[in-house]
């Protein structure tokens, strides 16, 4: 009988304990109105859930001039966590490394970013050696697991932005000085560490 009660109580109790610890250690995130979780909740109230209306929009942006280590952002209309829903890091030869649901951290052709209704190419303002190191970091994570709400603290779960954030964080460049739980793609767009190479909206 005791085991039957234990089985029911243990996880609600643990959820509460970990939640309270996380809240008390991250009050700055909860008091930040532009935190990712609040952006998401505001979007949900407007009826936007998930990464938006997925289709082939054919933005046909030119990828000319991209250097390894540059970042690519893509977005669909109605995305719930900002203007952009997806991100990848350019590794050269027309390829990007990104993290996505069923594929984990994987290499894709850069041309799949033509499917987005909005796309933006960003140049990271860093030494080419630093950018090369960032590319090497993401290459080492290939095959690792995707989890949509991957916290920044661990190295076993990745989402599309965490892998880029971590790759540059390891080189001393922090795209999230606000220390949020998660990194939204839009944060890269607004960062002082990048300059927009070109962007397109269809």
């Amino acid at each position, binding site marked *: 009988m005791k085991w039957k009660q234990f089985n029911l109580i*243990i996880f*609600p109790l643990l959820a509460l304990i*970990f939640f309270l610890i996380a809240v008390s250690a991250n009050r700055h995130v909860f008091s930040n109105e532009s935190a990712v979780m609040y952006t998401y909740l505001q979007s949900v109230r407007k009826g936007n859930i*998930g990464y938006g209306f*997925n289709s082939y929009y054919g933005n046909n942006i030119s990828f000319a001039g991209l250097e390894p280590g540059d970042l690519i952002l893509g977005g669909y209309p109605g995305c719930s966590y900002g203007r952009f829903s997806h991100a990848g890091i350019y590794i050269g030869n027309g390829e990007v490394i990104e993290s996505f*649901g069923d594929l984990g*951290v994987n290499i894709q052709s850069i041309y799949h970013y033509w499917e987005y209704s909005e796309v933006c190419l960003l140049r990271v303002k860093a030494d080419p050696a630093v950018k090369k190191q960032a590319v090497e970091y993401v290459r080492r994570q290939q095959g690792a697991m995707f989890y949509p709400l991957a916290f920044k603290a*661990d190295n076993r779960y990745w989402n599309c932005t965490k892998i880029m954030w971590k790759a540059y964080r390891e080189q001393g460049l922090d795209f999230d000085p606000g220390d949020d739980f998660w990194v939204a793609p839009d944060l890269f767009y607004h960062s002082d560490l990048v300059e927009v190479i070109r962007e397109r909206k269809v």
Partner: protein
Amino acid sequence: MQNLIAIARLYFIHIFAFLAVGISMYYPPWDIILSLLYLVVIGSEARLLREFAPSSRCLVILAWQVPGMVLFFLVISHTTLWDLSNYAFFIMLFWYTALAPILSLLPGIFWRGWPLYYYFLLALPFIMTAYHSIFSSSICSLKQTIR
């Protein structure tokens, strides 16, 4: 009535394990410890089914894994209607959050274009059905009686 209570207990445990493991991912390796605890608790729940009739036992186990199986079929159907297949995989990742820490320990190997965790996640409804069936089976309880 006892079937409904058993099913409700499993869903209650599963949903709160999702929350607990999800939040504990912020404090690795606590997520792995909680995931293992989840398996212990589910195993313990399965043992409670030994007193049930075989048909009731099957009903409880299948009812518990129905969401996972529906999501599995949506994913493998590759349906593009409302991007359902894609969203089904995302939902499946959330639904099996309690076991995600164990999947995250798998080596980053690709097979036929997909990483190892993809196959294991898709197999989880069936793995968990088997896990529950083994722990709730009368064969296990018979072994204990002999000892």
